[in-house]
């Protein structure tokens, strides 16, 4: 029984490629749904990208009187202010946008004074202020980071493998990033810098997974020159299957600890990472490889077709 690895079948012969059409359909539907989601309801941007202020306050022993806070802040006339409790009744979170032209630091001071007048002694666990220039810079650099990451991955795979491998990998990356956005939209997670870090990590992980399959594919192509690409892909995915399963499970186990015990502020990050690992594994098998099949089918058909008694040379 032990080690458990003995339980995994020595050789698997799943016909992964046979389900490629179904998988592609599902993926396309999910991608379209995400694209629609971008427009409606749209991303729930955090202050990193939208600008504004978030205050987390604690009132000690007594519960926060939300009504009092709202009244006090409405009198300040700084536009829409959201006040809500979270976790405990004595913890509250206040969010607002800095009015145009106002000095964000002064507005925060005003709000803190008003809240103190309404509630008495208040301690602030967190104060986050992001001005409009900074948020638009962060938005730009976040988008640039994602695109540059994907671009560099394409170059690396192109350099290490072949162009169609690189394209397969990049389509898979777009797929993974898009669907991760889909999850963010679905769960209405607040889109922050941390999630950009999560997406970049997913790009790294998904590539990692794809590279392992590609590596085996390249090796098997040299080994079995006459095998059709379709079968080569199935063979390579099957051969690397146990690794895919074990590594994926390890990563999921490691991150589940973070998702459960890592606290409120890391939860969105860990949820997106967990999802990304699943989707990254899926895309290596069902997105990256079939793309090569679509793209590279001509170049390899000649190799695959048995033409006469002599071994084919491409």
């Amino acid at each position, binding site marked *: 029984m032990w080690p458990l*690895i003995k339980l995994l079948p020595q050789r698997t012969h799943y016909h992964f490629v046979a389900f490629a059409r179904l998988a592609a359909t599902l993926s396309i539907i999910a991608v379209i749904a995400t694209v629609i989601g971008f427009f409606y309801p749209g991303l729930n941007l955090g202050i990193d990208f939208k600008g504004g202020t978030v205050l987390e306050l604690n009132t000690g022993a007594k519960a926060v009187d939300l009504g009092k806070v709202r009244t006090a802040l409405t009198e300040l006339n700084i536009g829409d202010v959201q006040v809500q409790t979270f976790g405990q009744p004595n913890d509250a979170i206040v969010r607002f946008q800095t009015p145009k032209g106002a000095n964000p630091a002064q507005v925060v001071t005003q709000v803190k004074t008003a809240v103190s007048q309404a509630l008495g002694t208040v301690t602030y666990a967190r104060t986050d202020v992001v001005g409009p220039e900074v948020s638009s810079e962060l938005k730009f650099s976040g988008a640039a980071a994602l695109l540059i990451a994907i671009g560099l991955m394409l170059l690396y795979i192109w350099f290490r493998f072949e162009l169609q491998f690189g394209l397969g990998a990049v389509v898979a990356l777009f797929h993974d990033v898009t669907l991760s956005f889909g999850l963010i939209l679905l769960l209405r997670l607040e889109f922050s810098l941390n999630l950009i870090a999560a997406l970049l990590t997913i790009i790294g992980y998904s590539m990692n997974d794809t590279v392992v399959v590609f*590596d085996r594919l390249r090796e098997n192509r040299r080994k079995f020159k006459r095998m059709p690409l379709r079968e080569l892909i199935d063979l390579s995915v099957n051969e690397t299957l146990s690794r895919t399963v074990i590594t994926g499970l390890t990563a999921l186990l490691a991150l589940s600890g*973070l998702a459960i015990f890592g606290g409120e502020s*890391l939860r969105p990050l860990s949820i997106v990472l967990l999802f990304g690992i699943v989707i990254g594994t899926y895309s290596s098998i069902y997105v990256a490889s079939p793309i090569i099949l679509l793209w590279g089918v001509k170049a390899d058909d000649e190799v695959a077709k048995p033409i006469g008694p002599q071994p084919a040379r491409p």
Partner: protein
Amino acid sequence: MLALSRWKVILVVASALFGLIFTLPNLVPVGSLPSWAPQQRLNLGLDLQGGSYLLYEVDTVALRKERLTNLTEDVRSKLHGEQIDFTGLAVVGDAIDVRISDPTKVDAAFKILNGALGERLLTGGRDVSLQTRPDQHISVTFVAQAANSAATDAVTRSIEIIRKRIDALGTKEPIITQQGTNRIRVEAPGESDPEKLKAVIGKTAKLTFQMVDVDAAPEDVAAGRIPPDDELLPSDDGFAPAYVVKKRSVVTGEMLTSASGSHDENNAPAVGFSFNAVGTQRFAQVTTQNVGKPFAIVLDKRVISAPRINGAITGGSGIITGRFTEESAHDLALLLKTGALPAPLNVVEQHTVGAELGADAVKAGALSIIIGAALIFLFIMLAYGLFGVFAAIALVVNGLMIVGAMSLTQATLTLPGIAGMILTLAVAVDANVLIYERMRDEVRAGRPAMSAADAGFTRALTTIIDANVTTLVAAVIMFQFGSGPVKGFAWTLFIGVITSVFTAVLITQVLVGWWFRAFRSKTLPII
């Protein structure tokens, strides 16, 4: 080959020792290690130890306005000095325009102004340029490169002043750095009140003494007609909402040599000050000439108080009264002592985390790491048996190396960085999984155990490197584009990927080698 070359063993032992020695300071109480041992602990980010991150931007618009105003005053005094009459001296857009009354003196005025205005640039030439215009007009503008150098200069001087101010507050180890061309980043760890910090840093603290214009008719002022040499300043003195004062300042904060918290004759809090020689002389002259008239003490374009001059003040020192508390008098003295900022600073970003919240985050992060690591250990040992134990040992060394390297380089560990560490552990296991699965493949292909194990290490290596370069690329990009906490995540991931490839490949190789040598096994325990 699985043959254990000496350098491999030495490298493994050295790396384990490195990790242990540099991790140790984090595990024992401060000061309990001998002085020759490394003392550096993990450098926790502000989100973990609590503190304030403030990003300021120099207000370049205000800076330009300020420089134009000063230049206007220079033009006025230079022309007065040479007794050249003029009219219509004013700022028009980005330029200063003046009309010389006597057409024969235009050339003389141009010559005088051209030599005396502005400052010399490092690149040669002066930072202002003059042009004569039709109808006896002369216009003065700043040259383009002067604007940039003024902003850079303002940032450099502001950093100095901010440092003095924060030091005077007693905040521990603030980090103040320039970011980009016109931004200043202040990171103050520890339990400091961010509002107090902002009040001290963000105040320009430009102090001027200006004569109150008692001749300005109240009805003109009410109608918004302010005499051209005057300005209307709001007041905090509690007597009048605003005062009409002469634009020209008698003395400025730059002429102060000292300032301190003090008390007036009624024992109310006040700020005592003394002037340097120039200030003493100017103040003496003005107070002698204007006995009985009020002057305004102005801080950042707001009147603090407007006392009446009871007699000539020739000693060069005095007190500023106003509606002060002990604390605000003390703060103002501090600001006056450290000098005025060259331009207003605006907060463009602030992140403050309370120390308690930070401590909670550390606890949650540590718990997540322990649970994540425990689950990985358990799983890998269940999955691969003895070889799983080897992988787990490599993982422990990996953990030590990461913490050791982070402590040694004093890289900042942030909350997302903890997530990076956990992910790194999973990536480290992946390298071992790739090696072990490769061994299994080789056995299946008919190789004997020892040779299969050897091939597992060599053949998996390209895959491991290919797979990890991608994560490294992602980490480098995050480091380049990310800010604050994300940079911490990237750095942790970067260090982690490098150490994990090293430990997963080399340490397990040595352990597997020892095992073969000790047990002469003909089979692998993972088949």
